[in-house]
Structures are given as C-alpha cells and as structure tokens.
C-alpha cells in the first residue's frame, strides 16, 4: 500500500520579490516537476507567490529538540552581539 504513495515534498514560497522563500506546507508528488506544479496549484491560488522551491522531505535534515539547550541557550549571554549593548551618548548621530 504505502509503496504506491508518491513521496512527500516541502514547499517554500517567495511571496514577493525581495523576500526570502518561506515554508508554506507540504504535498505529495511523483517527481520534482510535478511537485513544483502542485505547489503552484495548491499554495499560490490566491497570488501568494512569485517563486517556488520544493525539496523532497526526506532530504531535510533537522536539528533535534534534545540539542535545543546546547544549541540555542549559549547565545543568551552574548548580548554584546546586539547593537543595544553599547552605551553611547545621545548626541552621537548616524550610528
């Protein structure tokens, strides 16, 4: 049964020129060409996009939630990466 199923694809849509492609959802298709067309028919029926990326879901590698603390929390105490960390006089303009 399951071997008859077309593979799953993740769909990314650029909603307008100048913006990033953003994950829109997923769908089934037999090949990449069909996946792009299906994405056009399924996810851009209301002018939601100007460009489409598809990638077969099995090729998406994701970080594990188990690693969340070691991945993301170390950034918490690196406030010096943010411009607001630096205390400068208000008179200073254009910076």
């Amino acid at each position, binding site marked *: 049964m399951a071997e008859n*199923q077309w593979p*799953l694809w993740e769909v990314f849509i650029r909603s307008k020129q100048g913006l990033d492609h953003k994950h829109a*959802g997923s769908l089934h298709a*037999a*090949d990449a060409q*069909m996946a792009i067309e299906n994405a056009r028919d399924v996810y851009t029926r209301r002018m939601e996009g100007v460009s489409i990326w598809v990638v077969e879901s099995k090729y998406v590698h994701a970080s594990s939630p188990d690693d*969340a603390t070691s991945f993301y929390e170390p950034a918490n105490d690196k406030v010096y990466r943010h411009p607001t960390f630096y205390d400068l006089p208000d008179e200073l303009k254009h910076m």
Partner: protein
Amino acid sequence: MRVNIHHMSVQDLEKIFQDKIDADIRIEPKDWMPDAYRKTLIRQMSQHAHSEIVGMLPEANWITRAPTLRRKATLIAKVQDEAGHGLYLYAATETLGAGREELLEQLHTGKAKYSSIFNYPTLTWADMGAIGWLVDGAAIMNQVPLCRASYGPYARAMVRICKEESFHQRQGFEILLTLSKGSAGQRRMCQDAIDRWWWPSVMMFGPNDDASPHTAQSMQWKIKRFSNDELRQRFVDICAEQVKILGMTIPDPDLKWNEQRQHYDFGAIDWDEFWNVVKGNGPCNKERLAARVRAHEEGAWVREAATAHAEKRELKKDRA
C-alpha cells in the same frame, strides 16, 4: 549541556510538555509528546481532513447544474478550496508519523469517521446556500479557535484554512439572500433548505458537554478551546439574528431570546438521529464513502504510472 530525554522519567517529560502548553508555547513535530496526545491529534486532524474531502461531494453534486456562470466558477473554487484544506490537514497529520495513504485506508474501511453533516443529500440549488451559511458557519466557529491549537503544524494549517474559508460562508449567504428576494419558487427553495440543514448543522458541534468525556483532556492540551455546548450556543445566537435578514424562519418552535441568559433558548436535539447518522444510517453514508473509494481505486493506475515514469527518468539521468 545536552538534555537527554532518555534519562528523564515520563512524569518529568509530561510536566515539561504541559508547562509548555500552559505557557502557550507550541509543540512542534520533533518535540517529545505523550502518546495519547499524538493519538488524539492524529484522530482529530485526520477526521477533519476526511470531512473536508468527503465534504467536497455534496457540493460538487451541483457544480454541473449551477445556475449562472458566476455561481459555477465560485462553486468550483469553493470545492477546490476544500480539497486544499483536506490536503493541508493531511500534511499536518503526516508530521505526526501517519502517512496519507494510511489515513485514507482508515477512511475507506470505515475505521475513521468524518463529519456526519456530509451524509445528508443536496437536493436543490438552495442547499449550496444553506451549506455555505450554516455548515460552513458552524465549521468556522469550530475552526477559528483551533488557529491557536497547541500543535504547531495543526495551528498553522488552521490559520491558512480560516483565511480561505471566509469567502465560503459569504457566498453561501449571498445565494440564500438572492433566493429570498426571488420568485415564490425560489423562496420556497430557500426555506426548504434552511429547514433541512438547520438541525444537522446544530448537531455538528457534537454531543452535549456532559456526554463528551474527552473534552476536559483536550482542553487541557489546548487542541480544543471551547466546549461543544459553548460553541453551539454561539452559533444559534448568531444564526437566529442572521435569518431575519433573509426573512426566513428557523425550524425550531422553541427558539426564543432569553433575556436573563442573554442567549437564545433552543429546542431539544434529536440525538437518536445524530448517533444513527454517525453509525452509518444517514441518507448518504454509503454513497459518499463509495464515491471516495471509487476515486481512490480508479486513481491507482494513474498514481502508479506517475511513479513508474519518475523512476524511469531517474534511471535515465543516472546513466547519462
């Protein structure tokens, strides 16, 4: 530091999970979740997906008979949206590890349920209006709160669905409004459709709260945000006002404004009918399911051919 969930007790994990939900932090596919949460979600989401695609049938029934070109185009677009909604929901369910083929199998064998409302027949054009106004109206009432469901992919699918759904109810009401201003025959059609769709729509919210044992758990998990009776009351209150614009009546002699409750009182629901339709004794249960099974079975060779062609092309590419 790596938090190894394998070293944590189930109780600890459940506590972390529930804390997240209480703090309105969404659960995402790879996060740990209790088995019962996963199973309940798969059931709820796939049932919803099934309802969308079975729900295409009663309306598709009138596409070829739509009375104007504008109505025809709108109806196709609407039924097509329902296919899209089914697709979004199947895709969201797949993030929980249940493939679409497996879910369809459950639908086709009768193991999975779908909304009973679609087991009622569409007998006249006015039914397209009544479905849009009442059935979609009830569905929206159920669905809007789910845009804040605790499971991320579900909530995101619902956001997309609700955005698209907003035209459905309006087009339905517009159909009825036009009929209500039309000839005697059209007005009769309009009232008849409201008469037939009213009670099944009221039943769409499911059993009364005291007969709905899973509600408390689902509300704690935030995959259900209001009780059946709360939503039903809200629906009745809104429709009781809207029907006045149509100059039609709701087929319930007990429907009365209750000043004290600040709500409409309404008559008793025929739960006997409800459970019978759920169990398969509705007017169209067999036809609806048969139509889905037929589409799937007759599509098998198409899906196989596309797979075979894709494989052949891959092979050719590898050789080149």
